[in-house]
């Protein structure tokens, strides 16, 4: 039975990995990676590592992939579609050659190893193997330094991400005048569409709402001026 499950999950994991490499649309790549991560978590379960399997699903397939989906939705696939095989044929051939070299090397390392226990199911396990209790105890005793360093690293990465992607720093001067979707052309939203600037300036309360038949340019001016005041 384990045998069957192993091949099903490994097949899904490999298919997901192949999808990440081959699919053209980055959004489908992300979804394919989610499939890959979930089947990998199931493989972890087969290896009795329950806690890591759950962490994989919650942290990886959940949180990290949502971050990816947001960024893919924000950036899109770039202006032109990602041309997978428009990489020059020489580069493609080199990449495949190097990848197969890596695989051959790994296969030789696995098959030619002197570790005879690789061919077995592994050691007999204690009842608590892989449980949250065991992981927690290890993290707070034997591996306390690694645990603290990891938390420090997460803090530094969070600060770095804010510094890189935040609005206040690291952005070009003229960025505030350019909306990312409309390029260099400033295209304010039509008047009375319920924008934040209108709400702040009391648009529609102190000024009459525009006649829907006549969306005159002068009626758009208050909202635009208010938006500029906001900056």
């Amino acid at each position, binding site marked *: 039975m*384990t045998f069957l499950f*192993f091949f099903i999950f*490994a097949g899904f994991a*490999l298919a997901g*990995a192949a999808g*990440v*490499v081959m699919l053209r649309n*980055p959004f489908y*790549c992300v979804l394919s*990676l989610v499939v890959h*991560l979930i089947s*990998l978590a199931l*493989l*972890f379960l087969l*290896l*009795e590592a329950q*806690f*890591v399997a759950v*962490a*994989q699903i919650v*942290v*990886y397939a959940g949180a990290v992939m949502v971050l*990816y989906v947001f*960024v893919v939705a924000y*950036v899109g696939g*770039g202006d032109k579609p*990602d041309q997978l095989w428009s990489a020059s044929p020489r*580069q493609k051939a080199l*990449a*495949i050659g*190097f*990848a197969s070299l*890596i*695989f051959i090397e790994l*296969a030789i390392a*696995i098959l030619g190893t002197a*570790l005879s*226990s*690789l*061919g*077995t*199911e*592994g*050691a007999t396990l204690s009842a608590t*193997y*892989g449980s949250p209790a065991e*992981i927690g105890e*290890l*993290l707070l005793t034997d*591996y306390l330094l690694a645990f603290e360093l990891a938390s420090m*690293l*997460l803090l530094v*990465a969070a600060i*770095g*991400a*804010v510094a*890189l992607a935040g609005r206040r720093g690291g*952005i070009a001067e003229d960025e505030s005048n*350019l909306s*990312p979707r409309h390029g260099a052309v400033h295209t304010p939203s039509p008047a009375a569409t319920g924008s934040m600037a209108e709400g702040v300036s009391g648009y529609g309360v102190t000024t009459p709402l525009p006649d829907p038949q006549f969306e005159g340019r002068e009626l758009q001016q208050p909202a635009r001026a208010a938006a500029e005041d906001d900056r």
Partner: protein
Amino acid sequence: MSVNWYLLVSAMIFTLGAAGVMVRRNPLVVLLCLELMLNAGNLALIGFSRMWGTGAGEIFAIVVMVIAACEVAIGLGIIVALYRRRLPVDVDELTELHG
């Protein structure tokens, strides 16, 4: 199931990820392929942990997951910054560090 099988799957996933890093041009997908390689390493670590019957490999795998999360945060931050500055989101065209 002997641990060998898991290591073989891990090697295949690592190879796919490495090929993806070398072939793809969209930095988002390159990051996804890096994730593949890290996960292949994780699978091998969990397999070794199962082989010895101790939890050290699992701790190692959890630390790798933390590092992968950091890498994603920084990498996606760089991609968003590229997009905001209207630089091409294409690893072949980003050659400013050439010198």
